[in-house]
């Protein structure tokens, strides 16, 4: 028995854990295998989550990114006095009398002029003047009318406009429409596509980034190219402001009371069960509630973000309360004792020590609750926010009471529309929604990392 070295013969030992450390015994091997498996499960689980996200994101991005680009046609429009201001008085009321239908011929003429200018003709492509006009969005007439009403003095001039191309033409440059599909399509002909190519050649047609998608309001079914998410974004923003300002403080306050202050008895048990149960209430039921309480009883306006925000607040509260309570529960009691021991009041011990330690869980609950609220459509259906809204709500606080739509509503609406051009816009809106979500979460995530610690 001298110095035991690495090559010493393994002396038979009596201990339960005899044997070299370098080669694991059978049981340890088995346990280690279990360990490895367990760890692999964990990694797989994370992998599945991330893979699912990547898959969904790729498909959303693939479908949605084109929505941020749009095809435009540049035309020089002669603002014909004979059509727009017959009396020549430039009286704004008289000019307003001319409806958008009255502007259509101007565009038709401008199109013809453009084709002439490029030295081509409709006949080459077998398109009529009406077909050529149809290549331009129906929004164009409205655009023209707005311009004329804003600048009556320009009547009689020839002005250059950049008009949206119609959805099918735009789809042609995004791969949605092809010559073959155009054959069967009742809304576009191969001739129109060829003409579009010719216009592109001539520099009158181009595809570029489209701010309008972000700043414009929804448009009706027959002009998908003009549809934007401006109103929906504002609506969602307003609602999220309300949800965040109400749900987080109320949720945390309620949790603190229930977890730290409320006597533990059957009443608090009832409340606890009741709150978890609220989380299981289908969201549309919150819509029923919102309609009954906020609109019918309290008389708040319909389609308004304030009602939407309140309904979503009620819907989000259980999520925040449940997660907050769980986090409060997981703070070790010794921390509370320590604070009470130096003469802190219960309130102080909670706000100074327990709450910061529970913050990561609270923030997680908030993130998830807000994500849910941001993506919810069903409850909005009953309070009038699943709607076609063109007018922008004004700035808060009045804006909270103006009609608005919401991002998920816009997505939902667009996915139900007949024109396939809306599919890409729906995905585009989802991208915006996710960006929204990321922005909201970013702060929470940063905060959460600051509060995370182990003791």
């Amino acid at each position, binding site marked *: 028995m001298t110095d035991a070295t690495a090559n010493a013969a393994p002396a038979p030992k009596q201990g339960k854990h005899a044997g070299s450390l370098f080669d694991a015994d059978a049981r340890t091997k088995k346990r280690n295998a279990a360990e490895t498996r367990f760890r692999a499960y964990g*990694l797989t689980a994370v992998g599945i989550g991330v893979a699912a996200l990547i898959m*969904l994101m790729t498909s959303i991005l693939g479908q949605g990114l084109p929505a941020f680009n749009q095809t435009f046609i540049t035309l020089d429009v002669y603002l014909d006095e004979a059509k727009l201001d017959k009396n020549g008085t430039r009286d704004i009321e008289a000019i307003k009398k001319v409806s958008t239908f009255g502007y259509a011929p101007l565009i038709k003429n401008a199109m013809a002029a453009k084709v002439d200018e490029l030295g081509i003709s409709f006949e080459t492509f077998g398109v009529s003047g009406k077909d050529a006009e149809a290549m331009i969005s129906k929004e164009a007439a409205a655009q023209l009318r707005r311009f004329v009403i804003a600048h009556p003095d320009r009547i009689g001039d020839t002005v250059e406009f950049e008009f949206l191309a119609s959805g099918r033409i735009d789809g042609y440059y995004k791969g949605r429409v092809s010559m073959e599909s155009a054959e069967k399509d009742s809304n576009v002909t191969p001739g129109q596509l060829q003409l579009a190519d010719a216009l592109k050649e001539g520099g009158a047609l181009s595809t570029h980034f489209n701010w309008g998608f972000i700043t414009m309001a929804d448009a009706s079914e027959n002009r998908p190219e003009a549809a934007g998410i401006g109103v929906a974004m504002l609506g969602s923003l307003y609602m999220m402001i309300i949800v965040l300002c109400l749900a987080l403080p109320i949720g945390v306050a309620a949790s603190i009371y229930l977890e730290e202050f409320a006597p533990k008895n059957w009443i608090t048990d009832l409340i606890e069960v009741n709150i978890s149960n*609220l989380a299981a209430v289908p969201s549309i039921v919150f819509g*029923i509630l919102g309609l009954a309480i906020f609109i019918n009883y309290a008389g708040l306006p319909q389609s308004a973000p304030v009602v939407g925000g309140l309904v979503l607040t009620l819907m989000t509260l259980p999520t925040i309360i449940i997660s907050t309570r769980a986090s409060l529960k*997981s703070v070790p009691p010794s921390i509370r004792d320590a604070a009470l021991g130096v003469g802190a009041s219960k309130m102080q011990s909670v706000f100074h020590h327990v709450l910061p330690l529970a913050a990561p869980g609270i923030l997680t609950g908030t993130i998830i609750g807000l*994500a849910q609220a941001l993506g919810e459509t069903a409850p909005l259906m*009953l309070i009038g926010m699943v709607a076609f809204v063109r007018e922008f709500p004004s700035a808060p606080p009045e804006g909270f009471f103006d009609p608005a739509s919401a991002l998920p509503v816009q997505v939902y609406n667009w996915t139900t529309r007949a024109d396939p051009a809306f599919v890409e816009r729906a995905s585009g809106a989802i991208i915006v929604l996710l960006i929204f979500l990321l922005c909201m979460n970013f702060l929470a995530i940063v905060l959460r990392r600051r509060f995370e610690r182990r003791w």
Partner: protein
Amino acid sequence: MPVLWIVLAVLGLGLIGFYVGRMRALGSAGGDTRQLHSLPNYYGWHAFMLTAVPALLVLAAWLLVAPNWIENTVGAGIPEATIAESGSRSLVMAEVRRAAGALDMAVQQGLMDAATSHDIDANLSDVTERLKETGAIITSDVTQPVLQAAQLYRNLSAISALWMSVAVLVLATAGFAVAVLRSDKDFRARNTVESGIKIILILASTIAILTTVGIVMSMLFETGNFFEKYPWQHFFFGTKWAPDFRGDSELGMLPLLWGTLYISFVALAVAVPIGLFAAIYLSEYAGPKLRAVAKPMIEILAGIPTIVYGLFALITVGPIVRDWFAAPLGLGNSTNSVMTAGLVMGIMLIPFVSSLSDDIINAVPQAMRDGSFGLGATHSETIKQVVLPAALPGIVGAVLLAASRAIGETMIVVMGAGAAAAQFQAGLGAVVNPFEAMTTVTVKIVSQLTGDTDFASPETLVAFALGLTLFVITLGLNVLALYIVRKYREQYE
């Protein structure tokens, strides 16, 4: 905006109160905070609270009550004939309000002096025209009763606004005075402030209760209507769901309930293991970097609108499930299946389980792990036997949340599992086959509520009965969960 000014004035006074209260308390203690019962800031907050809270409460109450009172008073004065003409008092009132607004605007724009605005007579002058000039929207001719009502409305509003300002400011000042007088070194400011905060906390928790009451109330009435039109035995024990436009539908809820439980079960069978393992991996094994990235990423899954998942189920997962599993196994050839919806919903629910559990697991003190490691336990043994039991209440909470979400989901079910209820009459095989199309209570609540059937018919009203029944059932499940948590809870330290 006078209300804003009042609020600002009150808050300003509160702020002054904060400092005065603080100073006075300090003064009474000769500047020595040790002599004070509470920290100086508590005296400040106390003064602020007393100044601002009652005043603002009264302001809020006033703003809620006064318009109603004015409407009622003005409305009561409108001749019956006018009301009959317009259809309802509330519509006349809309006109009155609009006219009052136009008068205000007219005065503002100088088109009318204040005196005229008060005693202008609709029968004599061209009021409608003059008001339209202001740019206000006047939809029909302003008649004399409406004009008079509008003038009364303006008067009352002005008086109400005046008294409101007075009352609120007086109250704020009174609160201020009381608070400042009370700010003495022996005054228990902290206790007072904390009681105030506690009341706020209690109020916050009552909101959850009120929501429940509201939900039950808003569904109870219509549920009652439903059961008047449809026998409850058939609803609760019926095994067939077949609404019909001609009436005499079969509205048994069992197939829906079964579908709900089955699909939720599959979804949780996907989400809970994956979510829990992800949480364990992230909190126990992963480095801080991976964790910082992966956790928020997984959370995004909760924020993707369900319609995306629905389409994913419909277009991608459905055919895969059918072609790779259902058809080869001879279990059906429908793209709609419990499996499809369950799988996709499971993915959506992963973050509900993972993120929350991760936080809770992370909160388990390191000493617990050390104790286990010190005995030669592997990491996974430690997790399974020490960490998870200690984190159990939180994890159960997370799972409950996920289950709740599964029960409440519509879009994924509609697109993944279809809209047809489980076919009990087709035998047990069809009911337990996970590759069979099925639907849930929630889907039917939504579809009956948004459908085309007569809104007073049982086909529509059944949505409320379904909602209420689901509410009661989930309540039962939650009681069970609470009981389980109580039984197995392990409190550390």
